[in-house]
């Protein structure tokens, strides 16, 4: 954490202009949500919106750090980067398409929706990712 941590040293007119424009758009979005939703929908929207930030910052990020650190510590030096890459790619893909893989929305009367066995697809994709990682580790060892 070097200069990355420091906020820009000076907040100029550009910041204040974008602040005004940006918060006008935020206010419009909030008004749009408020005026198109009933009380139950509003509460649910607020919960998912704020919850998204909290779940990421308080659960997903620390968990990723814990898993990443644990795996890195146990990985041999030569394999560490490749294992890290494979872990990130397979983890992100799994999380991203989880609702499709688990078929949460499957419709009994509509076989054209979710026609693929996405769970099998995910396993194949993850297997290919780890095979590539293994190949790159072997290549690094042979050098």
């Amino acid at each position, binding site marked *: 954490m070097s200069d990355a941590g420091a906020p820009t040293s000076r907040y100029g007119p550009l910041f204040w202009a974008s602040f005004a424009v940006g918060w006008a758009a935020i206010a419009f*979005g909030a008004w749009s949500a408020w005026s198109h939703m009933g009380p139950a929908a509003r509460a649910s929207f607020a919960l998912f919106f704020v919850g998204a930030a909290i779940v990421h910052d308080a659960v997903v990020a620390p968990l990723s750090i814990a898993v990443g650190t644990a795996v890195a510590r146990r990985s041999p030096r030569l394999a560490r980067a490749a294992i890290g890459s494979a872990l990130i790619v397979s983890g992100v893909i799994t999380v*991203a398409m989880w609702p499709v893989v688990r078929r949460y929305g499957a419709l009994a009367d509509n076989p054209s929706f979710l026609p693929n066995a996405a769970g099998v697809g995910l396993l194949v994709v993850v297997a290919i990712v780890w095979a590539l990682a293994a190949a790159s580790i072997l290549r690094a060892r042979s050098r």
Partner: protein
Amino acid sequence: MRIDDGLHRLRPPAVGPFREGAFDSPVHEIRTAAWLGVALGVSFSVCFLTGLFSHLIQHPPVWFANPARPVWLYRVTQGVHVATGIASIPLLLAKLWVVYPHFFTMPPMRNVAHVLERVSLLPLVGGSVFLLFSGVASIAKWFPWRFSFPSAHYAAAWITIGALVVHVGAKIGATRRAITRPGREAEDAYRAADRDDGGLTRRGFLWTVGGATGVLTLTTVGQTFRPLSRLAVLAPRDPTVGPQGLPVNKTARSAGVVDAATDPGYRLSVEGRVATPLSLSLDDLRAMPQRDAGLPIACVDGWSASAWWRGVALRDLLAAAGAPVGSTVTVMSLQDQDAPYSSAVVEGAQVTDPDTLLALEVSGAPLDIDHGFPLRLIGPNRPGVLQTKWVQKVVVG
């Protein structure tokens, strides 16, 4: 300034993540953050504009008329919207991961502007994660919430893009400096900062993120980009799978129209501001001049599939009924008219376009009931939800 002094003194104890050097991975660095920020700025702008276009088509204000040409416009914009959203998932997670240590930055509040900048991060982070999560959940038809997805996704898009504008205003200088920092010395310093423990370097990290984006795109984009349909193993749709080789969004059974649609006494009525109201049987419709049009079904969910449709051009039907030129038309389904998308408005160039059909056939055979038998609307450059199926009434207004 006294407020600033007060803010400055707020300082949590230097333990855990607040410790100096608590985050020792080299990827927590401004240049990596800058490149990911630029990528996300582009991808979120693309999603916002394509999403806004889709919103305008579905809720047109008086100043907006959806063009009929090019016929593939909505197919491309909505395909890009969903594909870009999916591609943004690794970018967003990576960006949040790179800047995560800022969450514990010391002092937490430097001055009033710094406070405002940080407060604006809640709508940015919450909105970004919300948009991508709700987007993927909705294309998977999983709705674990109590709001209407389109209203919430639209509102969240404005909140997020607003917060993004604030963020860009605060960071554009630092981003430009980080990216354009010239010279070999800087490059060497950049490399030297990478740890020598065999872990991911910054470059390796960016390649990894790009790889995740590439894999996600390759395994999903085939739901709209047909040459890659065989790779689309993680997509909710395959554009070749469904009755008559076309995917279905809503089945006749789930719409509750099976009996009405298969009733041999079916008639289409054309009414409203017309000289001659019409009531037409299927045979009457088949006896009218038939037109063929190659048009895509382009779903808001980001999949699309092309087919050849055959039926009566809407403009021919309106001419037969003596409707005034330039009329706006409401096409109504056999569905309960309180059901969402049970009717659709056709206006402007789409009414007069020769390819706007009330189709009786697709791919050379009568429509499957799940594609809208006996009659469906199919027009150029329209979202699938506005291509009304099981049409029973055309109201000229």
